[in-house]
């Protein structure tokens, strides 16, 4: 995954990197205002959709944001992660300061929208009731989502913010950044794998 694994002989030792001149880090906002505004729009839209309770808007919110969540996790864990590991340190920093701030605000909003709209949709359709024939599958989806949420909240989000705060320091420690980035990408990979389980459950429910 993120194997920052290149030829160890050609790779500068972290201590050496830390001891040398600090890498050039472009200026960035840890929490971008545009992202914050977008997250606000998502939350307001979610409140409106839940309050009005229409089937189509609920389905739309759940499918669109659920697809976004799934794609981001899979893409991050299995495509971006390995590429990131093979980049030079300045390139990694450049990518990180542009990419990670967007994740800080958008992911919690996307996940909240997916789960809330999904629950309301389930309530609307009656699929969260024990009388629903495929109820076991619905409970299985709750368990999968629960595990993904714990990983995202306990590992992924703290690592995301930790990397950005470290990069804001006058002399960031590459070892800290590497450790937290690994944690971030591995967590995204695990949740990406769990998204495959979500695919199985959701397609089973949709075809029953």
């Amino acid at each position, binding site marked *: 995954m993120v194997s920052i694994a290149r030829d160890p002989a050609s790779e500068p030792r972290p201590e050496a990197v830390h001891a040398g001149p600090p890498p050039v880090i472009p200026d960035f906002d840890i*929490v971008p205002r545009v992202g914050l505004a977008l997250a606000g729009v998502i939350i307001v839209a979610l409140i409106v959709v839940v309050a009005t309770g229409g089937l189509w808007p609920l389905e739309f919110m759940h499918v669109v944001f659920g697809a976004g969540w799934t794609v981001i996790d899979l893409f991050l864990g299995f495509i971006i992660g390995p590429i990131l590991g093979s980049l030079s340190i300045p390139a990694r920093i450049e990518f990180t300061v542009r990419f990670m701030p967007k994740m800080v605000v958008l992911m919690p909003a996307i996940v909240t929208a997916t789960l809330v709209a999904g629950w309301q949709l389930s309530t609307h359709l009656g699929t969260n*009731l*024990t009388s629903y024939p495929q109820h076991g599958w619905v409970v299985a989806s*709750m368990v999968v989502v629960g595990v993904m949420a714990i990983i995202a909240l*306990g*590992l992924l989000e703290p*690592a995301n913010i*930790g990397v950005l705060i470290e990069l804001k320091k006058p002399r960031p420690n590459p070892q800290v950044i590497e450790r937290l980035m690994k944690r971030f990408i591995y967590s995204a990979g695990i949740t990406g794998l769990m998204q495959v389980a979500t695919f199985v459950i959701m397609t089973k429910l949709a075809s029953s």
Partner: protein
Amino acid sequence: MDDRKYPPVTQVGMASLALIVAAGIYLSANLPEHVSLGPAEILLALSAVMMAGNLLSITRVKGFAWERFFAVARWSLLAYVVIAGMIEFVFIHNHVRGGTLVVLTLSLIVFAIHVPTLIGFTVARYSQAA
């Protein structure tokens, strides 16, 4: 990198979150039947105890970067209070009442405090105390 030994805050935090998630799944998996709140209350109580333990263990870390911790945790708290408020709105909108609402609300409070604690700790452990 800082070689100090830190208490297992992240691991305990994730276990605490797992307990309230389990409580929520237990309650929601049995709708519309009224199930005993006992198991959910026990899970919530254990989760809250773990959170308190986590906070206590952080206070015992010598030279902990509290300034950095609070700088990050307070904004995270704001964000997670908004998210928890959103979920609470859904519970009330769905006419969840009584003991179930109390358990779910307290679970959200644990969630809204514990996640910012984990974020603040992750940042502060790699920072120098002022």
